[in-house]
């Protein structure tokens, strides 16, 4: 396994990238991005089998990842860049005209590492199931990963997909819910309660793994590795991963306020004081 200390340093740099990217264009979604840093670093640096230098759309014999809650594009772009999918300097084009780093991820501008457009919520699980079925047809044993927001689970299509994956034993997907309990209008519990999410997915026929420590890198890695042991066992796999929206920046935590707002100059300065530049800023 990669050196955990080095990965923690990378996580810090990814957090810097996120706040700097959204600050530069006064828009974007820092909250959920900051909460999912450990997940992305774990996935791309430790868990997934993939080759950033040889990206193909088909990804034959590679593990695949689909970001269903596309609004947390800053963390996705930062980790893709810092893994070598495209130059780190390109992060400065985020949300600007003529950029490959659109507000929400897309294949349309040909950004390496992205295999589907997302942003309109609820669609990524279906796409992942399709890719997983293609892998089975191709006798390709690699795994398909997805990430979803918890608020996103209010979309009906998620449950169509969840029903299908269990009924047809799509057991080569590992989905994760970013269970931070917050969405644009407030706490998920108050906007539209998800009820007992673990019981819901289990009732749909999934293997459900709970990770209460979604911002602990070693915990995220160990839970993803545990999920891998269930691949090929006849059930789709779901990790319910508790995270803190805004993790790492004191004033962004404990609130839904930073779901989709960018820091101003003073707020950026305050944030950067809390997150050390461990790799070079773009």
């Amino acid at each position: 396994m990669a050196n955990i200390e080095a990965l923690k340093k990378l996580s810090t740099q990814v957090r810097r990238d996120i706040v700097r990217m959204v600050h530069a264009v006064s828009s974007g979604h820092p909250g959920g991005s900051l909460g999912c840093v450990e997940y992305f670093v774990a996935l791309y640096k430790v868990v997934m089998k993939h080759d950033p230098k040889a990206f193909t759309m088909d990804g034959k014999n590679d593990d695949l990842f689909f970001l269903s809650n596309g609004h947390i594009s800053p963390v996705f772009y930062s980790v893709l860049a810092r893994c070598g999918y495209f130059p780190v300097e390109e992060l400065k084009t985020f949300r600007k005209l003529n950029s490959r780093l659109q507000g929400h991820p897309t294949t349309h501008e040909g950004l390496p590492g992205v295999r589907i457009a997302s942003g309109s919520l609820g669609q990524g699980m279906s796409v992942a199931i399709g890719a997983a079925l293609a892998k089975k047809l191709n006798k390709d044993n690699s795994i398909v990963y997805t990430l979803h927001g918890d608020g996103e689970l209010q979309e009906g299509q998620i449950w169509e997909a969840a029903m299908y994956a269990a009924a047809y034993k799509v057991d080569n997907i590992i989905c994760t819910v970013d269970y931070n309990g917050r969405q644009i209008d407030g706490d998920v519990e108050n906007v539209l309660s998800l009820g007992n999410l673990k019981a819901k997915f289990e009732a749909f026929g999934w293997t459900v793994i709970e990770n209460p420590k979604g911002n602990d890198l070693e915990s995220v890695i160990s839970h993803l590795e545990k999920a891998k042991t269930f691949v090929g066992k006849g059930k789709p796999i779901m990790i319910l991963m508790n995270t803190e929206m805004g993790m790492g920046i004191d004033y962004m935590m404990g609130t839904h306020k930073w779901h989709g707002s960018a820091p101003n100059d003073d707020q950026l300065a305050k944030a950067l004081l809390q997150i050390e530049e461990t790799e070079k800023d773009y």
Partner: protein
Amino acid sequence: MKKYTFTEKKDTRSGFGAGLSELGKTNPNVVALCADLTGSLKMDAFQKDHPERFFQIGIAEANMMGIAAGLTIGGKIPFTGTFANFSTGRVYDQIRQSIAYSGKNVKICASHAGLTLGEDGATHQILEDIGLMKMLPHMVVINPCDYNQTKAATIAIAAYDGPVYLRFGRPTIPNFTSADQKFEIGKAVMLNEGTDVTIIATGHLVWKAIEAGEALAAKGISAEIINIHTIKPLDTDAILKSILKTKCVVTAEEHQMNGGLGDSVAQFLSRNHPTPQEFVAVNDSFGESGTPDELMKKYGLDSVDIVKAVEKVISRKK
């Protein structure tokens, strides 16, 4: 007026089923998905012969579109099958984001389009699907006219790399085009050369246009009849060439006037060669229950309606 004959009436959806079945044998990358309408879509033969490449999705069309998009990522060529209403309006955002904007090689195959679905009524008779789909950037939109052409179109779209909307219908209608026709996406088919008027028709209205052409010939009117099976990309060269000769046009389709084939033709002509045009189409109305023939008459989509439109448009020529 050239004579068209047919030996049997067949449904266009069976042409789709036959084409898909043939693709199953010839192209191992072709996979099929259906949302609980396998029999209605005539996908049973493919399902029986290639069970490993057939995906029964259940009544969950949004999920079907997403799964189809995902299957392309492993190099598959997915053909989705359900009614036109559930293939478009119900899943418009899924098609827009996961298929069209993502540039996925999905073939959206839609049966029971239009009024000729019949007795089930307006909930199922979508008349807006061509408009919805042609507005999506780079979406190819095809509406073949009979069994043979639908079969040929089904086979042809597998060889095209990109999203396609293929629209066909429920009723049996004359099967008059040749069984061994070459189907070229975006290429109009000249059915009858004429000099007084151009009739541009698509789908089930093509046979109605032929009937109208015969009635017009009896009245001494020479109609040029063009079968536009591909609404997007539109064969504007063929249209312009004909209009330069006839100087007026009637478009005919089983669709709303807003957003259909006639709209596409009018947009092209207004920008390039303004020409008197009449529209045979549903005029801002929902359908209702009835037999296909009754509905086509009531909503003005019969051959007599084409004849009337021709007489009107000829009177508008300067």
